[in-house]
Structure formats: C-alpha cells, structure tokens
C-alpha cells in the first residue's frame, strides 16, 4: 500500500506558488492512495494548459496530448485497454472551449473514465485570456477589454443535459473533500465529470474570495429533472456530488459472434 506522497513523481511543477492546481494534484494522489491504485495501471491524460501539466507530476502513466483533445485520447485508450484506470484532466479552456465537443460526446458516450476539469475561469498558460467560464464582465484581458460579455458556460448543467452519469464539483481549497469526490468518481461505472474550482492566483487574484462563497451541497440525486432544477438555479459554488445515475458503460459487451473467417465474404 502506497502513501499519497508516493504517488508524486518528484518532477517539480511549473505552477505559480499558490496555484489551485497543486491541491488537485494532492487530491489525486490521496484518492489513489485510498483506492490502493497500482501506479502502473493508472493513466492520466491531459490537453494543454497549466492544469494539463499535471500528469508528469504523478507517478503513473500519462499522456500530455494536444489542446482540447484529452477526452477522446482517454476514451480511445480506455476502450482499447479496459483494465486500466484512465483519468482525463485539464483546464476550463482545454475542456470547455476548444474541447467542448468532446465534452458533450463523452457525457453521452459514457465510457468509464473520470474527467477532472481544473476550472480557474481563465487561460492561465497563455497569460490570462477569458475562458468560457469567465464572468461576463471580467475586464482583465486585453483580448476582451470589455470582458467577454458572453454568458458563462455552465459545466455541470451542460454535462447533465449531455447525459453524464456522474456530476460533481470540488474546490482546490478543500483537497480532502476533492479526494473523496475523486474516490467516488473513479469507482463510478461510466463517465464521471468533476469540475474543480481551482484558482489562478496570477491572473485572477480575486478568486481568493472563492473560499468564502464555496459551500457544501448535499443534493445528490439520480433524477435528471431534479438535478436540472438544482443546476439551473445553482450559484456555481456548491461542492459535492450532484448527480449519480449509472447506466450501461460503453462499449456494451455483446455475445461474441463466432470469430468469423475475415475472408469468407469475398469468395464467390
């Protein structure tokens, strides 16, 4: 049995001191310890962003892919190698902007992977542009001087509408709570989505105030209508597991057809 810190690879993170992503790293290693995860059977798959650098910091296999494509890469791996514990992770830009389509379809497809989005409402890596979750009037990026002026993306509500079977939210200020959520997410059969409010101290210092707003929500339901009602009213700061409604995991197993002769059909 390994301790949480033994799941750290020893590579020094490039993150700014105080970055929320450190807590997510800690929560993952804690969850792995609790799960007694064999390190070589875990794979962390990410896109590009500060958050997406995480896999190299964990003692497991990893794939640091291209921007926005962690989910399909992870799904392909899991379908091909179902015995592995595959976790996709990345940032709000990676997952909800360039990766939005894969997010929708991963929720529907229900491959048995966990997806952790470290949501800091900003593009940290590229120096502070607005992301889909950035507040409408956040004026700190020169690229959108009046603020994005676009309704923020609602990750959990969209995950629900798209068909995710496990939806939760954690906060980088509470790595233990997050570890507990991840522990459950890994064990959930099917696609488990975990949004983590993970602050960017460098480009959004105002997010320090999140810790006052975050509160526990004990709303977990398996009724989509109830979940929809809750999520459409949600202030975005509730943490907890909101929805959990297991359904068949993709790909479904079919009675094996006799391994046919591939060449049969060509013969006349």
């Amino acid at each position: 049995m390994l301790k949480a810190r033994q799941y750290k690879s020893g590579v020094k993170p490039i993150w700014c001191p105080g970055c929320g992503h450190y807590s997510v790293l800690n929560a993952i290693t804690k969850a792995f310890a609790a799960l007694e995860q064999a390190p070589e059977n875990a794979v962390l798959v990410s896109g590009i962003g500060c958050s997406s650098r995480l896999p190299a910091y964990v003692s497991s296999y990893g794939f640091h892919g291209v921007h926005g494509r962690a989910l399909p890469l992870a799904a392909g791996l899991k379908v091909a190698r179902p015995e592995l514990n595959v976790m996709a992770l990345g940032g709000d830009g990676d997952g909800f902007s360039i990766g939005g389509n894969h997010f929708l379809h991963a929720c529907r497809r229900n491959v048995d992977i966990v997806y952790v989005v470290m949501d800091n409402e900003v593009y940290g890596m590229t120096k502070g542009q607005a992301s889909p979750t950035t507040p409408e009037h956040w004026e700190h990026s020169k690229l959108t001087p009046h603020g994005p002026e676009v309704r923020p993306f609602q990750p959990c509500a969209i995950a629900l509408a798209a068909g995710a079977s496990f939806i939760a939210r954690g906060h980088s200020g509470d790595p233990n709570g997050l570890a507990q959520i991840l522990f459950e997410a890994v064990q959930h059969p099917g696609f488990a989505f975990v949004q983590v409010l993970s602050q960017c101290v460098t480009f959004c210092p105002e997010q320090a105030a999140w810790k006052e707003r975050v509160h526990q929500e004990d709303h977990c339901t398996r009724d989509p209508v109830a979940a929809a009602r809750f999520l459409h009213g949600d202030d975005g700061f509730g943490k907890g597991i909101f929805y959990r409604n297991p359904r068949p995991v993709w790909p479904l197993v079919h009675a094996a057809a006799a391994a046919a002769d591939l060449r049969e059909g060509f013969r006349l």
Partner: protein
Amino acid sequence: MKNVTIALTGSGGTGVVALGEMVLQVAARLGLYGILRKTFGPQIRGGESAAIVRLGPRPLASFGETIDLLLVLDWTNFQRFADEIPLTDTTLIIEDTAAGTAPAALQSATRLDFSGLARQQGSAHSNIAALGYLGSWLGCDGGQIERALEQRLQHHGADTLALIRRVAQAGSHLHTVSPLALAAPAAVTGGERGKEREQERGERWLATGNQLAGLGALEAGIRFVAAYPITPASDALEWMAGRIEQQGGHLVQAEDELAAINMAIGAGFGGVPAMTATSGPGLALMAEAMGLAVASETPLVILNVMRGGPSTGIPTKSEQSDFNLAVYGLHGDAPHVVMAALTIADCHHTLGWAVAVASERQTLSIVLSDQFLGQSMQILPPLAEGAFKAEPVSASLPPAEGGDYFRYLNTDNGVSPVALPGQAGGMYTADGLEHSEQALPSAKAQDHQTQLDKRQRKLESLVDSPHWGECCRQQGAELLILCFGSLYPIALEAQQILLGESLPVNVVGIRLLSPPPLAQIRQCMDEVKQVVVIEQNHQGQFARYLRSFGLSFCSYHRPGPRLFTPGELVRQVKEMRHAESQAI
C-alpha cells in the same frame, strides 16, 4: 476482342448498379475476370446512375478507353455521364423499350423489351431480364445465373426468388432470339462452357479496395479503429465494423475527425494497433494530431481515400490531390511515413505494411488510396494471407524495474524502448511538448536536436525495404512511366498496348512515398532515356516532390474527375517520343 466494357445506365429505380454487380458475379462464375465502377448523379436517391463493367480472360485492374456496349434502362439525364461513358462510333447501344427518348445523337439504339419481359412475369425488374440476356451472351447456362442470384438474394423469400428466376430466364431466352452483336470476352467464347468449367476455374474473390484495405489492416493486427464517416472512406469502415469486433477489437464512430484521430492515438499508446480512415477534408482536420503522433512517437495508421479537391470538391470522384497534405501537411519538422496502394488488391498489402511499420517504428503511417481503388469492385484470385503483423509489444520492453527507463532514449536506429500502461517500471508521460530522453518537457536546444534527429533517423532505413514499389520492365525499354497509387494498373495496361506497337516501356509504381526510396527511383530512371511522371492532380504535386530531390523528368498530370485511361497514357508516351525525336 479480349476484353469488353459495358456501361449500364438508368435512373435510381432501375437497378443498373445491382445489374452491374450481378454481371460481375456471373462472369466470375464463368472464370472471367472483371472490374466494376459505379457512378451516380448528384441526387441522393432515385437519380440517374450507371455501372461500368469491364470483363476479360485475365485480371483487370483498370478500365479501357471506350465503351463497347451501352445498355440503357432509362435515358433521363444520360448526358451527366458524358465524361465517364465515352461512346465511339463502334459502341453498340441497346435501349429498353421503356427507356424514354434517347439524345438525338444516339437514336440508332437497338431496342429490346426487357421491361416487357419482366412485366409479363408480373415483375418490375427489367434489370433482371437484362442480366439474363447478358448472362446468356457470356455463355452461362441457366443454372449458373440461378446460383448467382441465389447467393445474392439469400435473404429473400422463395417466392421472390422464383419470380426473379423466371424474369432472368426470359431475358436469357431473348438472347437466343436476338443475339448480341458483340463477341463475348475471350475466356468464354474461346473455351468450353458449362458446369464443368465452373468447377475447374479455381477460386475467385469479388472485392473493393476499401474492403481489402480493411482486410489488410485487420490481418496485420489492427484492433482499434475510430473514425468519422466520409465518402469515399466510409465503406472501408463499414466493412471493418462488425468484423473487428469478432477479432476482439473495437470500432468507434467518433463525433468528428479530431476525436477520431486522438482516440486512435490513445489506443496506440495503450499498445493496441490502431487506425482511422478518412478523405481529404478529414485528413486536413487531423493535421494537428498527426503531429502529436509523430512527437509522442505513438504508432498510428491513417487510411486516406482521396477524392476530388480542394475543399468539399467532388466527393464521389477520384483524384490524387491530397499528396501534398499527406506528405507536408504537419506543423514543425514532423517526419512520418506516407505510402500509396497501387491496385485494388494492393490495398491489402499496403495497409498491412503500414500497420507493421507504424508499430515497429512508433510512428504515423499514412496510406493514400483513392476513390477509384477504394470503391471499384474487382474479380480477383484469392489473396494470400498478409505477411505483416504489428510488432509484438514485448519486443521493445524497457529495462527491468529498477533500471533507468528513458522512454525517448536516443538509440542508434532511432527507435526508443516503449513501455505500455500496466507495465511496472516503465511509467512515463508521453508528450507532444519537446522533451528530454527521460520524457520530461524540455526547451533545450540539445534535447530538441536529439529528438528531431532521432525521429528522422528511425525512418531512414525504411527505404531499403523491398516493398518500396513495383517495377514492371520490358526488354529494350527506353522510357519509364513513374507513378503512384491507382495510376499503376492503368500504366501497366498502357505498357501492354505499347508493347503491341513495339514500343516497350518500363512502369514503376511507388508504394513508399515518404521517406522516398531515391536510390531505387534513380536506378530505374537511369535504365532509360526518358521518364514521365504521371499523376491525377492539377499541380503535379508528386512531380514537384520528386524534383525537390534533384530528379528530373517530364511530368504529365491533370485533375479528376475523369479517370486516366491506358489510351491517354499511350498517346502521351507517343507524343513525348515524337517531341524528343523532333528535338534531335
């Protein structure tokens, strides 16, 4: 006449495409060879369609110059096929009585009452009557046509089958009263007919290039496919879908091409041989992730079945204009393998090779095929089981636990030891960021140079493979036709015609496009006085590529949608020789 080309045209409802396929099936039972091409008007259903069938005593991998027989079940929008059904003064034209009005220039058609014969049996299937007619002409006895119909219609009820059989018999009978004024292909007219022959003839396959690409991939070990439908690649995927499952693998229909290629990369990273298939627009969308496969050194195969470009272009027609994209379309210095299948049968061989190469060199192999190879249906002798297998993973295990494992180790042959998830002691993070040998992100000049050199180096020895291409030489040849992909069989047929005119030429089809097998190409070029590089695109993309290595030659290129014909190449060669002799 040894080969015969028949064009069958009608509207969507008349079943000319089914007719074409059945003619091919019947012909195969007679020991004939043949090839079939389908073509449709823009309408999705119910529009005009045509099937072009060429039959002969030896394997046929290309179409001839002109049409010997045009059989029309419906004249509506016949002009749309003007480019593809080149009629000559000697083309025999038969029209069904219900075909409507022929274009003014084609009023001389012989009228046969296929639809009437069908109607008499209470059927609307004039195409089956036509099948009976053509079957008789080819030399079938009634039983042979029946068995072909049974195989094809096995899921239909006995009543339907009986009806269809009667219509076919009526068609056969029509041939005895109005025989076709065209010699049937040689194997039949020249040989014995009847049942005995059918048993002796040896096994025949009927297949498209897309299907054989699927077969080659599965036999070489592909066990994961992710793809997004696109014409003309979809039917390769459709062929594979049920079958890969029976082999314990999976095919995922992805939400888009970006997902498809990244899924395949994920599976490849997991050690499961993986591929995707697409066509131009999809390949363009995959360009970014191709670079990821290259940089992370993940095995990946892409089958790209080319169609007319640019942009959406002409989706249902053949062209070789994705060459540039396949060879050069990645950002950064991203060496990878590009191959081209040379014939319908070669789709099997080339896919197998591509799978083996991708896995043994941990790289991206793109295979170019095209709509002509992919969707034409050919009668061919059975293919030998593919010789290629994806490298078994254990061959490149990293050092035992405890030893220092460098995923991107700078080895002599450029291939680094790869560990697979699940394997203790091999944990690493694959990366598209530049990295050190230890797989840690690095912006150091030395690491960049090392990895760039390594990724280039590991492909270099590939050019020594005997599979680099196919040469078909003729004694005394002074001219070489150099090509890739589907022009190869066409060039071979041109070679035969030229030989008949005492103009021997050599033909070389390049299977390995990148890295280029320059030594072999140079040697082939040195054997002759003149070289012409042919390709089916507007810019002469392949010629430009070869020139970038300092080769010089004449280039003949033109875009689709018209297929190249052997006669066109014959003319081209003669003109070149003429130009040269004038120059002297």
